[in-house]
């Protein structure tokens, strides 16, 4: 394919849909949208009722823009119909179940037919190819195996790519590092915060990870500054991937070598950006809530699923040659947002502010308290050997710089507490950045 200009790795035929002419892609999308709407209408009672209430039928969809007429699906729908209420295939055709680790109440359950699993493996192959991986790569898959979609999703994708997979799952840092060194690992899949922990430990244990060249990082929001830090400190290329169990798991979108936004695999997942207050579809470039429709899912189609992730669409075509549209990397998940003294704050904003100050590693934790009716935000930041000084005034200056940097971005003053190295808990999965002690 002439448009192919990703770094060495070679073209994988499975990635052909990444380069389809837009008109041809739109044709595929419309055809798939019509069939998935019919399927959901026939098999999902909830969707059918909402369509009927609006006087809509599957044949109301005659163009892609008609999608804006369709009702949204939200996370609560999955909880309300727990466990199998949104399944559109009989159990005989469902070959896999996954579930989210829901922090409150019941988890949400998602289902896959064999065809769904094949699509999942396909989009994960396309994900790995976009990250420059190929047959011959040794991929250490440190996403958790189990009900969480991360582990198995990456696993089957890596196998389908023809790479060598090490299904090590999460946790046990020493073993991870031993395997990384001894097995000549060239790529790793895990959360970015866990990778930071791994490289820190690797340097301490004098582990040779010079063969590692690619990190496929996701499952938690992270900032561009964090990526710069990871790439600088470890010498690898760090790619952001995007996905969610409700849609399929990892494999919804991925960055390419350009690292300027994440390509959405639009032939399987139709993206829209909406105003989360009004539900109106927003134009490219405007920030809003990402809404996704599964175009080919059988066991559990999701029509206009509200992800609660905040981003915007990039309209220009990517220099990598892919015609797939991109979303800006997601630094904000509405679920992670907290309000302090009337200001909306996302942990990623705090992260960006901290990383602007020289000499700090992004190990931080946000603690929210309420003292005599006033909300207080404290950010605990670990002191690194580079930042540590034997002089009080230099450490106090560091503290003030961090405070100023946060005030600059958030517009509120917060308390910075410097803490010792490794005193903040390291997560082996998604990093828990906020502790809210306010009893709201």
């Amino acid at each position, binding site marked *: 394919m002439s448009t192919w200009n990703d770094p060495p790795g070679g073209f994988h035929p499975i990635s052909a849909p990444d380069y389809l002419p837009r008109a041809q892609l739109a044709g595929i999308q419309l055809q798939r949208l019509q069939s998935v709407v019919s399927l959901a209408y026939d098999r999902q009672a909830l969707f059918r009722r909402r369509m009927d209430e609006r006087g809509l039928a599957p044949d109301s969809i005659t163009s892609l823009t008609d999608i804006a007429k369709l009702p949204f699906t939200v996370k609560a729908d999955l909880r309300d119909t727990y466990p199998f209420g949104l399944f559109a295939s009989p159990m005989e055709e469902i070959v896999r179940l996954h579930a989210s680790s829901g922090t409150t109440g019941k988890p949400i359950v998602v289902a896959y037919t064999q065809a769904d699993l094949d699509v999942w493996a396909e989009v994960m192959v396309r994900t790995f190819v976009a990250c420059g991986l190929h047959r011959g790569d040794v991929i250490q898959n440190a996403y958790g195996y189990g009900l969480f979609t991360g582990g198995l999703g990456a696993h089957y994708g890596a196998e389908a790519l023809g790479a060598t997979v090490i299904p090590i799952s999460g946790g046990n840092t020493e073993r991870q590092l031993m395997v990384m060194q001894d097995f000549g690992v060239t790529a790793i899949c895990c959360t970015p915060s866990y990778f930071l922990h791994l490289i820190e430990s690797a340097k301490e244990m004098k582990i040779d990870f010079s063969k590692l060249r690619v990190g496929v990082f996701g499952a938690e929001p992270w900032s561009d500054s964090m990526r710069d830090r990871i790439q600088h400190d470890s010498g690898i290329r760090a790619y952001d991937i995007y996905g969610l169990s409700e849609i399929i798991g990892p494999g919804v979108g991925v960055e390419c070598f350009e690292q300027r936004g994440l390509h959405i695999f639009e032939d399987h997942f139709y993206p829209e950006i909406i105003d989360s207050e009004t539900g109106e579809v927003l134009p490219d470039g405007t920030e809003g809530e990402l809404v996704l429709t599964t175009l080919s899912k059988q066991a559990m189609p999701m029509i206009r699923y509200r992800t609660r992730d905040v981003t915007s669409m990039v309209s220009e075509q990517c220099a990598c040659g892919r015609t797939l549209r991109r979303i800006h990397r997601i630094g904000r998940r509405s679920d992670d947002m907290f309000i302090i003294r009337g200001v909306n704050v996302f942990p990623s904003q705090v992260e960006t502010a901290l990383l602007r100050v020289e000499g700090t590693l992004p190990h931080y934790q946000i603690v929210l308290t309420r003292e005599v009716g006033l909300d207080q935000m404290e950010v605990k930041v670990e*002191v*690194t*050997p580079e930042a*540590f*000084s*034997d*002089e*009080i005034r230099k*450490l*106090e200056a560091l*503290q003030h710089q961090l405070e100023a940097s946060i005030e600059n971005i958030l517009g509120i003053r917060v308390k910075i*507490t*410097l*803490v*010792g*190295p*490794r*005193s903040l808990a390291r997560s082996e999965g998604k990093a828990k950045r906020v502790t809210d002690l306010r009893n709201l």
Partner: protein
Amino acid sequence: MKLQQLSLFLENRPGQLHEPCEALAAAGIDLLTMSLADTSNFGILRFIVRDPEAAKEVLEEAGMVVRMTEVVPVEVDNKPGGLARALAAIEAAGLGVEYMYDFGAASRGGKAAIIFRFENPDVALAALRAAGVRVLAMEELLAK
């Protein structure tokens, strides 16, 4: 002669001082002298040992942030006005003192030793010598 001083970052919570001392004890490392600087949020423990490299390794292995800094041990008369005279010379030489503390174990024969941290130890050394202030060597500090 300059000395290598070690400093440790301490959080403001119980046990923070005990932990490093325990690690040094286990490695059989003797603290020759030390000083603790504290603020409302954190502290810095500064200390001198015979083999700073070994102590640094022990502490880093225990997961602590350690910094090595050059300090200057100065001899003063162990009587009223002894320190003042040394400080007058330091002031006359235009040197700024970041901090200082006593090296009690080295006091003898009417002399005391004070550890000084100057912004630029090399400039300080030359200036002190020129001003006739005696700078001690490690062996002199350790001699009993």
